[in-house]
């Protein structure tokens, strides 16, 4: 019997509701969950339906296009309340009605004088715990030994009868470590002896995009629950601690990255807005409304100066990371952008698209260098090696290595179902590739031969090479 695939699992009991008998009804404890489930998809700062933003206490009190939404102590005189009990137009939510319990909570909150919180605690844990910014000149290879993960949890969060496709695969640039993202967790393996290292739990949903920081010391994950919530988390891999949690999206985050100087976090998702946060205090610095469809991929340049972002409509844009100014739009893709990867010297980047092409671009002027018909049917993933090579996978069920002149230099002996994510190991010698079933296969990047498979969890045993 083949070892069970990487993402298997048992679901831990989902967080139970907070204790009963909450006497004071407050915005933060009681109202926010109701708004989040029912209202915030439209009444958020990006969509701003009816000019009303219900994501924060302040903006809720400010009201919308038709004036104040809530009047303290007077539910029946509050437009918001009249809308949710369907006593007045517009009835809200548009196609449904809140449960009697939820309506009761909101009525009591208004009647109780619009309390913000039981104490003065912050709205959400958005503020970073530490200042991550790296001083100029220190970007790149860290001093000392390769940054390996410290002690990690060894029990997978999820253990199921069946695997599911991984949502992200990322390799450390300086250490033989690869991170595999699936529902509720990120699993770390060694890329040299393929050993299982441990688990970083992600109770917030599925991480859709995972990357190591340029110095290999941090792991960044953007993800969440589809249609419901999204955020970006950064771990210090030495301590397995979450050092930052940022973003408060109403759908999952699909793409995220941390700049090389660790000053900026960028994220994007189905709301089409590209956001850049400051890691110093977690403030949202730029809200960039340029993409006409879901933001599906983004990556900071290795020098941290440029941010590239792509969308589901084939749009590709380069931004000045520091001031959020648009530098170039890179036209040409006719299908969703599935991946963006920079070459180590920050001079060149590659974009992968469902239109079947890989396109190489010159970062300095945004000009197109080359377009490869890499995978007929669609390219699903692409990644630069530490050197000049690119690995890509696609709907033609192939995993291939290219050089920047467009020559196919190796083809992996991949025989699985739909390879959806690929990465190079830190030394550029191996390819790690996940497939639709959630299997993770390792190949020799020079000749394409199979090296082994990453399986979780084999508590002690190492997986022997397939050869």
């Amino acid at each position, binding site marked *: 019997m083949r070892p069970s695939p990487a993402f298997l699992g048992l679901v831990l009991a989902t967080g139970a509701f907070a204790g009963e008998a909450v006497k004071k009804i407050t915005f933060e404890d009681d109202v926010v969950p109701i708004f989040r489930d029912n209202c915030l998809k439209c009444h958020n700062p990006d969509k701003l339906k009816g000019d009303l933003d219900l994501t924060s206490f302040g903006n809720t009190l400010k009201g919308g296009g038709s004036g104040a939404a809530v009047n303290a102590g007077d539910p029946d005189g509050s437009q918001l309340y009249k809308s949710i009990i369907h006593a007045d137009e517009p009835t809200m939510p548009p196609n449904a009605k809140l449960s009697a319990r939820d309506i009761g909570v909101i009525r009591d909150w208004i009647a109780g004088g619009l309390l913000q919180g039981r104490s003065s605690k912050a709205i959400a844990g958005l503020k970073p715990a530490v200042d991550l910014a790296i001083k100029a000149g220190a970007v790149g290879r860290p001093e000392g030994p390769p940054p390996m993960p410290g002690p990690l949890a060894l029990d997978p969060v999820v253990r199921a009868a069946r695997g599911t496709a991984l949502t992200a695969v990322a390799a450390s640039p300086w250490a033989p470590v690869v991170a595999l993202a699936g529902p509720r967790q990120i699993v770390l393996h060694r890329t040299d002896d393929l050993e299982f290292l441990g688990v970083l739990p992600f109770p917030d949903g599925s991480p859709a995009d995972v990357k190591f920081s340029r110095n290999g010391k941090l792991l960044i994950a953007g993800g969440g629950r*589809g249609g419901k919530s999204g955020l970006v988390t950064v771990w210090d891999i030495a301590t397995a601690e979450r050092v930052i949690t940022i973003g408060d999206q109403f759908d999952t985050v699909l793409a995220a990255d941390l700049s090389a100087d660790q000053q900026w976090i960028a994220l994007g998702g*189905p709301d089409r807005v590209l956001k850049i946060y400051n890691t110093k205090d977690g403030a949202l610095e730029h809200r960039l409304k340029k993409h006409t469809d879901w933001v599906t991929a983004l990556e900071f340049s290795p020098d941290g100066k440029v941010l590239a972002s792509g969308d589901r409509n084939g749009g590709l844009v380069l931004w000045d990371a520091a001031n959020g100014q648009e530098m170039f739009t890179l036209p040409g893709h006719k299908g969703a952008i599935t991946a963006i990867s920079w070459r180590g010297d920050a001079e060149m980047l590659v974009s992968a698209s469902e239109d079947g092409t890989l396109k190489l671009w010159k970062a300095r002027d945004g000009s197109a260098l080359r377009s490869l018909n890499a995978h007929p049917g669609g390219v699903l993933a692409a990644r630069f090696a530490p050197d000049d090579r690119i690995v890509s996978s696609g709907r033609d069920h192939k995993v291939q290595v290219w050089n920047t002149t467009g020559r196919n230099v190796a083809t992996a002996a991949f025989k699985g179902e739909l390879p959806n994510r690929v990465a190079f190991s830190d030394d550029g010698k191996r390819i790690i590739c996940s497939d639709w079933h959630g299997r993770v296969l390792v190949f020799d990047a020079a000749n394409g031969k199979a090296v082994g498979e990453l399986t979780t969890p084999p508590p002690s045993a190492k997986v022997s090479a397939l050869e």
Partner: protein
Amino acid sequence: MLRGFFVFSFALPLFAAAPALKDVKVFPADVNLRTRHDRQSIVVQATYADGVTRDVTAQASYALGQKSLAKFEKFTLTPIADGQTELRVKFSGRTLVVPVKVEQSQVEPPISFLNDVMPVFTKAGCNTGGCHGASRGKDGFHLSLFGYDPDGDHHRITRELIGRRINLALPEESLLLEKSVNRVPHTGGERMKPGDELYRTLLSWLQAGAPKDPPAVARVVRLEVQPAQSVLEGTDEAQQLSARAFYSDGSDRDVTTLTAFMSNNDAAVKVTDAGRAIAGLRGEAFITARFEDQAAGVQVLSIPKNLPFTWPAVAETNYIDTAVHAKLRQLRLAPSAVSDDATFLRRVHLDITGTLPAADDVRTFLADRSPTKRAAVIDELLGRREFTNLWVMRWAELLQIRSADQQVQMSAKSALQYFEWLEERIAANVPADQMVRQLLTAAGPSFENPAANFYKVERDTLKLTENAAQAFMGVRLQCAQCHNHPFDRWTMNDYYGFAAFFGQIGRKPGEDPRETIITNSASGGVKHPVGGKDMAPKFLGGPKPEIAKGTDRRQVLADWLVAPENPWFARNLANLVWAHFFGKGIVDPIDDIRVSNPPSNPALLDALAAKLVAYRYDFRALIRDICNSRTYQLSATANATNAGDDTNFSKSAVRRIRAEVLLDALSAVTGAAEKIRGLPQGGRAVEIADGRTSNYFLTTFGRATRETPCSCEVRMEPNLSQALHLLNGDAVNAKVTAGGLVKKRLRDGQKTPEIIEELYLRTLGRFPTATEKEKLQAFFPEGKNPETALNDLFWSLLNAKEFVFNH
């Protein structure tokens, strides 16, 4: 309240003599349970002597032969062990036996994407045009409209955005499920509930790894919905419907809970998700049921409870009256009285010949005492040249005889040749099947064989296919070009299979640039846009014929289309003829027959079609039957029961006279001929050969441009510009003056009352009434020249509704 109660209690006995039970039916008539989770619900319907039906499923008693083989609970049979037995259904002293067969009762069937999952998206409304079925999807997720592309849907759900829509490790956390039950915010709201049948189907499919079907999976070949007809008496009376799908492997399945039901008249009969038809206001509705790519429909009538109704003893001239009366009795509608002679004469002249009766014709007819004078005048009119003109025009509309902007495409010369070809055939009474065969199989140079213009008018294979289906079969296929027809049974496979008959037409230019030579190219074909497969020709709603390479596919198509057993051709033609005489088709619009727009009286349409075949497609004979029927000769005046009816032919419909006929009538009664381009002085508008020819009057009154074969091209609805044109435009006033009729009559020494009488006869086809004569006296004082007043009267008559409408 109290008073009402007494009235009710006294009134009750009057109606309490319940009509006798006539028939009891069980649906389905046989039960096949195959595999472990199969089931079959049972519906029992009773029919009473007055035509009313009742759902008596709950009142009937049931006895299962061998209880060890199956379980009968909540009117549903489920399997226990293999074998054969029977279910005895008893109601009101009658017993019906339903054979029950149980097979593979221990076999757990694998879940099928096509047969289990796809119906969920249709039933829950996910793939409708307003939601994910929209051409660009909704909120980033697209499903094919009503599931025309199961492979594409499987791809989009499982592989388009890997990791987003499904989660095979934690199936219940799949976005697909979380959205559908509104666990995460969903614009479409809650489409199903956790744990219900639809949810469980999706979940089991995800738990099984979201598999695609093996290529050999059984496909639905037919959907049957029962009972075919229900007559519900009283508001809130209900009838449960039963939907059953038949598969290519010979199995069947109760799909009532998976079928999407839709009523075309919610006010009369609404239908629940569970397939329960509930009566509302008086009227009739067709319930369309959709399961996978199949659609079927049933008719449900709603009639008021305790409606006092006595069927009047009315004569039946022929089979037409029999069929119409049967439907009217069911609906408790009485037909209007027969119209008077003058009304009949004007109507039959307009309908058969497109002309008004001459003054003397009216006088002679009204004076005639013969009991068969109506039949005699019908025969006489059918022999007139004007009858031919009218039907040549009608066919020219169907065939879109019209010159194109580019003379090479379709020159005025070609249009004229085509029109003359048509005229020769209709004048010679060439049977319609032969004519259509000549058109479909036309080959050779179009100047020599003008029928070849059929392939010159439209060069696009797909449009040609659509036009042929619409003109000769009354089917609008257009929707199925891009997706399965939303309100009919047609799939893209049907569409492209049918188009393949027109896929091998060769066209090359003749010597004259305006001429085209049509050939059978014996190569080429039509490709399905999904998958790009070259389609083998398949008859619409029929089998795939074996066609030897090189055989003209059009010949095969023509053989099938005009065969007497073809279900479309004769019915379509009969309906087209019927609509001409009643202003409304039995299927209406006449070229839009579909599951959701069935014939209002199927028996009538069947009878007419059968007759047309029996008459060897001589439509004059059919028209003779129609015009002689009592139904055609009814008055337009409603009685107490039929005022609200406009679909069952219980009274004559008042129709505006169509553009060409109205213009010709104005010219004829005033004696002022019209000059129309391409026709000699005095030529009539119905004789226009080229669809491009028009004038202000004809355009205003909705003449067909013949740009499409659609019946909607002829616009019959009255509007303001028409009224203003008649009142103020030069059509009426100028013609009254130019014709000089009044002046001529005065010069001939006729007296005012004689002239008044003639004006009435010429325009309205009747004598002025005593009241009219008396009121008119005031306008004609002794000693004053009556010319102006007579012309004013003439003008007034031509502007009267009675003139502009056929009634």
